[in-house]
């Protein structure tokens, strides 16, 4: 469970995040939708403690990020916007590095790693060096290393960015699986179809503010538009930066 209360962050004169509040519940997929530059990535970066908010509070499973950032990071599995791998290490070694940093012991690493490799269907690349991985193989590896410590909460920043249709499909299935396991899944996207297809709850962000926080159905009802795409455009007030 992730709770965000009145989060604010500015860079110079630019108010990147200007009072964002929402809740992402366990066993649900929450989508953070907004045009490019709306403040999604900055919001997420404050959630996984890479940035400190100017104001506001973030609670992850009831732990305040400002109080105990380390404990929060233990509860989180993060696929950041930056998802670089170590090219001279194999996929397996990449995953193992993060597992060790999470403080896991060898036996546990082995079981968790082998299970993730199976679930993400990446046995064919597990022992290959990451140099020359396709975009999809890279994302799989990055997700595996983010989830190696079996986190209760999963944050994914634009996870399907740059993936082809097949890779996107399998990633969506994987996210459903995470939800069924009772995890709290929070992901950001600027693609409306994706959010509509996946989310139990949609938080729409524009210009650093939350402009809607509803279920997809409620969103349609609220705007009086049967089509989600039209509903979004109506909420955000422009079509700029959104993709169908």
């Amino acid at each position, binding site marked *: 469970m992730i709770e965000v209360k009145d989060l604010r962050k500015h860079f110079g004169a630019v108010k990147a995040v200007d009072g964002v509040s929402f809740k992402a519940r366990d066993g649900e997929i929450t989508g953070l939708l907004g045009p490019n530059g709306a403040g999604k990535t900055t919001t997420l970066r404050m959630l*996984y403690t*890479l940035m400190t908010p100017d104001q506001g509070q973030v609670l992850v499973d009831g732990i305040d990020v400002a109080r105990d950032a*380390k404990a929060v990071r233990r509860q989180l599995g993060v696929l950041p916007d930056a998802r670089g791998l170590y090219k001279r*290490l194999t996929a397996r070694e990449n995953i193992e590095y993060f597992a060790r*940093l999470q403080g896991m012991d060898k036996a546990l690493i082995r079981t968790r790693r082998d299970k993730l490799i199976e679930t993400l269907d990446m046995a064919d690349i597990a022992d290959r060096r990451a140099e020359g991985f396709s975009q999809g193989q890279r994302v799989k590896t990055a997700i595996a290393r983010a989830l190696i410590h079996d986190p209760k909460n999963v944050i994914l920043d634009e996870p399907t960015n740059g993936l082809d249709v097949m890779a996107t499909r399998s990633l969506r299935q994987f996210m459903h699986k995470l939800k069924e396991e009772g995890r709290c899944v929070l992901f950001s996207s600027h693609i409306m179809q994706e959010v509509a297809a996946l989310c139990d709850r949609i938080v729409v962000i524009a210009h650093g503010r939350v402009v809607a926080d509803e279920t997809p159905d409620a969103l349609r009802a609220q705007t009086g538009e049967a089509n989600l795409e039209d509903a979004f455009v109506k909420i955000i007030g422009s079509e700029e930066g959104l993709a169908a």
Partner: protein
Amino acid sequence: MNTMLIVFLKEVKENLRDRRTMMSALLFSPLIGPLFLVMIMNVVITRELNKADQPLKVPVIGAEYAPNLISALKQQGFVPQPGIANPEKAVRDMDADVVLRIPKDFGDSWRKGQASQVEMIYDSSQRDTGSSVERLKGMLQLYTREQGAMRLVARGLSPTMMAPVSIDERDQSTPQSRSGQLFAILPYFIVLAIFIGGMYLSIDLTAGERERQSLEPLFANPVPRWQVLLGKLGAICVFSSTSLLICLLGFNVFGRLIPAEKLGMTMNFGPSFVLQVLVMMIPLVILFASLQTLVAAFAKSYREAQTYLSMLMLIPAVPSVMLSVLPVKVADWMYAVPLLGQQVGITQLLHGDSISGSQLATVIAVGLLVAFLVTLVTAQVYRSERLAISA
């Protein structure tokens, strides 16, 4: 397992797989110094020996005006060559080291008992000609003294009349100390071995990692950043000190190939030299690792970091150049200046002098202190929000 150790092991493993880092740390940077030394020394020694043994070939203009002079010079190993039309141009163009010109009235003046003139035409800005010019001058002066003495004897005077003061030179330099002067540049190569040995790693582990966008996910792990930093510094230190060790062993091995004894020098790159230099250099290993990481943390990209570090690389050259150009008297305070202390210390060892325990302690203590402070600053920069963000 401890965070620092995890990071350290991973960085070492990853970089052992990188051919460029390996070549640079273990081959190129440590061996450039010893190879350079061998090359230069061989050229110098071969040239000096050749010049001393070989007959001195000099073009002579007007040889027919002073046959006695020429035959006297011939006995000293002088081989007259046919005269050339434009001697001034010839020496400037380095076609000849030196040209001897004997004017037409040489014989007239000689017979009148006056001073006869000969001209030596050379270009002293051509370093190479020095030894030929000196040799010819020496031959001419010997001839002059002999002939002068004979004229005095012919008039019934003692030749000592012409030499009221005689000079005896007693050079206090030892072969060791002369070789030390020749090798003033050598400490720079040792410093360079550390610097280049760790450079690619330092850039890669901070600027490179950020550019490849793996720093942000790394920092999402529940580990303090300063521990990550220390792990990385450890890996850099391992590579740069390996480079240093190879460099010193290189000097040790190649030092034996140099025919220095032919010049009356001895060179001591033995185990005690290696060990003392190693101890003095440990603070620099840490200092450079921190400094390079600090610079890399400020750079926006790998390329930018590379540019900054190439400039930083010139700083260690300053004490080397200073000490080789200005013969400064070694003072105790110099040991308290990082880089200068190491430079002075190595130079002393090359001279065959020893370093006292307190001097050694000063070099190490001050070096470690400065390294610690730079590491603190770097850790501070590592904590900043901007560090991890690549875009």
